[in-house]
């Protein structure tokens, strides 16, 4: 099975259970919003998906590859944008990208070709020589998205990538990533607590206090009601 599969995954920090038997599947080329309030377990799930942590309870498959059995092959298929900024602010845009390319075994002409392609894809080609520090918040995020595409991943994981951005930047970045899934066939898992970033045809997985409350296509879950109302009533009922 391609795309992204999470099967019966649980994780605890000592006594505190952060994820409790979470299962969902995102088909290849789908955009799935992982919706949950702060503390729902989204970042923990991202840490497991990127193998910053490992768990013995449950299975994770990235593009059909079991991350526990073949961690390096699975990681090679993932592009990640973490909630925390991960740019080296004193390096240029190009240097940030070439460093990341090298971490994925790309160098020389191959790396240059990919860097040019992703910068053009994200409309940032003219900023290659600028220092990351000189970019505004929206462009920094855009650069991080460009970076996570360099090694041509098949699954994109974005952990609250629009936090701290103004409305215009949020809209632009949300649209870019939707395009990546609809036009380029990338599987996207987009963690957020902002319901206006989710389209009616997007897939949604609602996480609350470590449990998956519901999953499916947004319009089916809401039944035509605003997503925010559905989300609030679900999380209130579960509290």
């Amino acid at each position, binding site marked *: 099975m391609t795309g992204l599969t999470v099967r019966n995954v649980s994780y605890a*920090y000592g006594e505190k259970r952060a994820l409790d038997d979470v299962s969902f599947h995102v088909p290849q080329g789908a955009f799935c919003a992982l919706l949950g309030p702060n503390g729902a377990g989204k970042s923990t799930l991202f840490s497991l998906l990127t193998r910053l942590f490992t768990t013995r309870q449950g299975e994770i498959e990235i593009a059909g590859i079991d991350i526990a059995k073949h961690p390096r092959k699975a990681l090679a298929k993932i592009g990640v944008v973490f909630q925390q*900024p991960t740019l080296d602010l004193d390096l240029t845009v190009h240097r940030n990208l070439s460093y990341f390319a090298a971490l994925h075994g790309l160098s020389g002409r191959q790396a240059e070709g990919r860097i040019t392609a992703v910068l053009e894809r994200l409309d940032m080609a003219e900023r290659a020589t600028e220092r990351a520090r000189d970019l505004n918040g929206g462009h920094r995020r855009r650069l991080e998205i460009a970076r996570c595409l360099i090694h041509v991943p098949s699954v994109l994981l974005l952990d609250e990538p629009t936090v701290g951005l103004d409305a215009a930047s949020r809209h632009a970045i949300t649209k870019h990533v939707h395009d990546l899934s609809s036009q380029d066939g990338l599987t996207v898992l987009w963690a957020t607590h902002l319901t206006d970033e989710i389209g009616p045809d997007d897939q949604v997985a609602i996480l609350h206090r470590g449990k998956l409350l519901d999953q499916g296509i947004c319009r089916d879950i809401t039944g035509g009601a605003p997503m925010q109302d559905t989300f609030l009533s679900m999380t209130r009922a579960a509290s």
Partner: protein
Amino acid sequence: MIDAMIALRAILIREALRFVRQRSRFVAALVRPLVWLVVFAAGFRAALGLSITPPYQTYITYEIYIVPGLCGMIMLFNGMQSSLSLVYDREMGSMRLLLTSPLPRWWLLFCRLLASTTISILQVYTFLAVAAVYGIDMPWIGYAYVFPALIVAGLMLGALGLALSSAIRQLENFAGVMNFVIFPMFFLSSALYPLWKMAESSALLRDICALNPFTHAVELIRFALYGQFNAVALGWTILAGIVFLGFAFWGYDPARGMKRG
């Protein structure tokens, strides 16, 4: 294999660029041992009489004695500085970027270690050059012999920093490391005074100094600077390095999770 070497090169370049950018860090790393050499050693010169002990074949001044210790000091501080930047990287997220690349985690950590050791060695040679200008020079052969000794000592002290960085949750806790790791390691060693001098004050303190891996790193450097080989110091330094590296790899094991700040 090629992927691993590409990553190593990129990590070395990144560390070198960071180092070049942070000129104040370079100056601080150089000024610290020079202050000890020029001010502290001048003051203690009269107070401390040093008899002839290997590798020295004649009476030496105190300034000459502490040069290897100050080389060790540069590496100790740099190892800690590097681990401080690892904790910073983790808080800032760039450590996540490194650890999620599709290469063995131990290799990625080792690349970081090698990068910080390279920076340490550059700092030490700069210090030795300034010391030579100041009038404290070593036999020419010593400058070549000390290179492998600096690699071993730098890797050991860098591995200690790496191990500490896996255990430290937040940057604020780093002050504790200064008090409980750097200062005891430095003062309870042969960097500033020979162990036989320490034994005159306290046999227990001498024994603690003799167990301190930093003492052995300093002695390895001291002997190498005079074209001599100290097998015991090398053995202890390598052993300590392996133990610290083992702790570091264990500390960064994904099955242990990444410490939450």
